[in-house]
């Protein structure tokens, strides 16, 4: 699988930020895989990690997201971020990051919405404190040009994001 799983880009947060945009993704891949290692900046509160895709028009706020479907059966629609999991609070043990992955299928289909399946967790430390694990699936733009990650309380320094392109082989 020499060219079927290729690192397209990565981001490492050097100073706290609420938003990380991965832009100018190539159009030659059928799927994207995302690996995330993140924690957030606010003490004693586990925050959501949300993603939104950029459509061919360049906007994140158009119709890039249609419907988000949670594993509990609840749905949300419209131009909103989908909650794709949780990140540990700043009160978690130093150096502990929540880890997870997202798989985005059909990113260049053009006709059908791509689908995001994700699993992200906010394990505080060694089973103490509150733990959250979230598995979600969502529908996104028909052609994905970029990916936006959002943590409303802010990603802390050291949070990392890796985007891989996958070719149908």
């Amino acid at each position: 699988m020499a060219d079927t799983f290729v690192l397209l880009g990565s981001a490492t947060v050097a100073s706290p930020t609420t938003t990380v945009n991965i832009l100018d993704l190539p159009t030659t891949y059928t799927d994207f895989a995302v690996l995330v290692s993140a924690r957030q900046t606010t003490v004693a509160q586990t925050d959501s990690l949300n993603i939104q895709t950029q459509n061919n028009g360049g906007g994140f706020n158009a119709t890039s997201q249609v419907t988000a479907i949670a594993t509990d059966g609840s749905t949300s629609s419209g131009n909103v971020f989908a909650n794709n999991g949780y990140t540990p609070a700043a009160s978690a043990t130093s150096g502990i990051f929540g880890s997870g992955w997202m798989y985005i299928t059909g990113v260049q289909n053009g006709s059908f919405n791509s689908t995001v399946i994700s699993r992200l967790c906010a394990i505080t430390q060694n089973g103490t404190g509150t733990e959250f694990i979230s598995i979600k699936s969502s529908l996104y733009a028909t052609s994905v040009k970029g990916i936006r990650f959002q943590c409303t309380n802010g990603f802390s320094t050291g949070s990392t994001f890796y985007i891989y392109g996958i070719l149908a082989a």
Partner: protein
Amino acid sequence: MATDIEKLMKLEVNCETGEQRYVELTDEELAQLEEDRARYEAERIEREAAEKVRQAAKASALAKLAALGLTEEEVAAIAGA
């Protein structure tokens, strides 16, 4: 909601060039952020309230099992407590 972020910036990565840069959020993005914060805070409160109800129900059930004469080990065996 207070954070330790002095300026609301976004990190942008260009996959073609590999360039990473910090850019201030636009007014539109700030408005969206505030909206998202309010929504997720409401969801968090709802989630934590539901968890408290669940924990209270579990404690009540365990107490009732103990009142029936089950030992702590027996209660733990059937309830995973």
